[in-house]
């Protein structure tokens, strides 16, 4: 079962690169949804040995929430927003891809140092989690639109989710569901914040918030 898991890991890394290189807001939401869907498949490959109700709940919960509910919420948040693409990122797209290459290489180098053991049965998923976490943080720093930063936050949360499902211990169900619920609430609030920023500035560029001075 090693090879399909690695194929999934590679597909998710490719989706990371797409998130780093695209400026279209709706395309970003769609790709984040695809990433969530593929990530929801991950527990079915990592938890092979004790395939249980726990795996199904975690997988199905991730699939529905990340692949369906959150993207719909984000599309809803974009209603009435004029912008359809990121205009002035702090870091350009070509440079972002180069940064992504660096992030991925370092992440896989670190992951390669983790010995395969009963605690960490899937080092490749740990590499993936590190690269996704770094990609998410990079997106939050490098982009100016509020929506792209939310996508960065989503990728960061995806990384935590991926790391969680790669571990063999089954006691993390409550933690996982808690994180997913937090994420959902977070996206709700961020949707409201986007609407407010848009009403105030006719744009969702977060650099505008600097004008809010005394």
């Amino acid at each position, binding site marked *: 079962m090693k*090879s399909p898991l*690695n*194929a999934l*890991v590679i597909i998710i890394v*490719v989706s990371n*690169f797409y998130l780093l*290189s695209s400026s279209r807001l709706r395309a970003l939401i769609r790709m984040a949804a695809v990433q969530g869907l593929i990530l929801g498949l991950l527990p079915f490959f990592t938890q092979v040995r004790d395939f249980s109700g726990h795996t199904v709940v975690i997988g199905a919960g991730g699939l529905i929430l990340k692949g369906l509910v959150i993207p719909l919420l984000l599309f809803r948040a974009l209603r009435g927003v004029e912008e359809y693409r990121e205009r002035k990122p702090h870091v350009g797209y*070509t440079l972002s891809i180069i940064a992504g290459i660096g992030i*991925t290489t370092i992440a896989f180098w670190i992951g390669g140092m983790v010995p395969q053991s009963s605690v960490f049965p899937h080092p490749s998923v740990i590499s993936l989690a590190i690269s996704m976490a770094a990609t998410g943080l990079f997106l939050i720093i490098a982009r100016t639109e509020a929506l792209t930063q939310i996508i960065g936050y989503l990728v960061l949360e995806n990384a935590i989710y991926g790391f969680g499902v790669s571990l063999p211990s089954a006691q993390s169900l409550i933690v996982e569901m808690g994180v997913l619920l937090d994420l959902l609430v977070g996206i709700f609030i961020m949707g409201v914040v986007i609407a407010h920023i848009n009403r105030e500035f006719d744009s969702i560029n977060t650099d505008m918030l600097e004008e809010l001075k005394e």
Partner: protein
Amino acid sequence: MEQMTLKSVLSPLLALSCAPLLFGIIARIKALFAGRKGPPLLQTYYDLGKLLRKGAVYSTTSSWIFKAGPVVSLAALLSASFLVPIGTIGAPFSFAGDIFLFIYLLALVRFVMVIAALDTGSAFEGMGASREVFFSALAEPVFLLCLLSLAQSASDFRFSGVLGPTEQFAVVPAILSGVSLFVVLLAENARIPVDDPATHLELTMIHEVMVLDHSGPDFAFITYGACLKLWLGTVIVARALLPVHANSVILDVALTLCMMVVLTVCIGVVESIMARLRLLKVPQLLMGAAALAVLALLSGKGGLLQ
């Protein structure tokens, strides 16, 4: 260096005789999409024959460099065609590190074309040369990375190993390096979406603008060289995607040739359904290809992802 066998001469012979056919296939596919009948498949051969019979015109500002450009570039590409095997018949010359020689022969081609373009003293050709160098500076490392990932999975730095039959075929790295190589193929051969070979607006041209001043036999050399380059590129991509070993030499060669025709059709389809990218978007495309190449290197045999 290995002993040169009579059979191995077949790969360069196939390349030399059939290379212009690929241009014919692309033209046919584009005509099909546009609802036209299209030129005959052998049109490139007719063009080459016509150009070879013509005389060449030389500008008074140009020197011997301008005349040497097409000759040297064709010579380098002919040498390169003796390094690349087709199927499992092997190449006439094969030694450790010949993949690097191949890359530098292609670089030599570009270098002589660029100085020949600069030698004309035309502003347009200088602009084209500048763009060509810019994009190939990005495409070359990607090409190198792809060849390295193929060499890594074959544990061999000879073309006969890189493009030879593999024991275990890893699907994921093969797809990654195949897609990446295809993008490099489009960029190196000045096809859409990097460059439009059919355009005659100087402002948008890259490769075509460099060869505007060449005429007659010189232009025939350049066109034939472009055909050879496309042929060698498709051989490499075909083998990356389809490392066949059917235990029969004829079957292997036939499968590789079929895959090459499929790739050529793909180029034609891409040219028909896509527009040329904005110049500023091209580096992004090539960096995307670089990302895939790095992933292929990471996920291949002996890579970090095991």
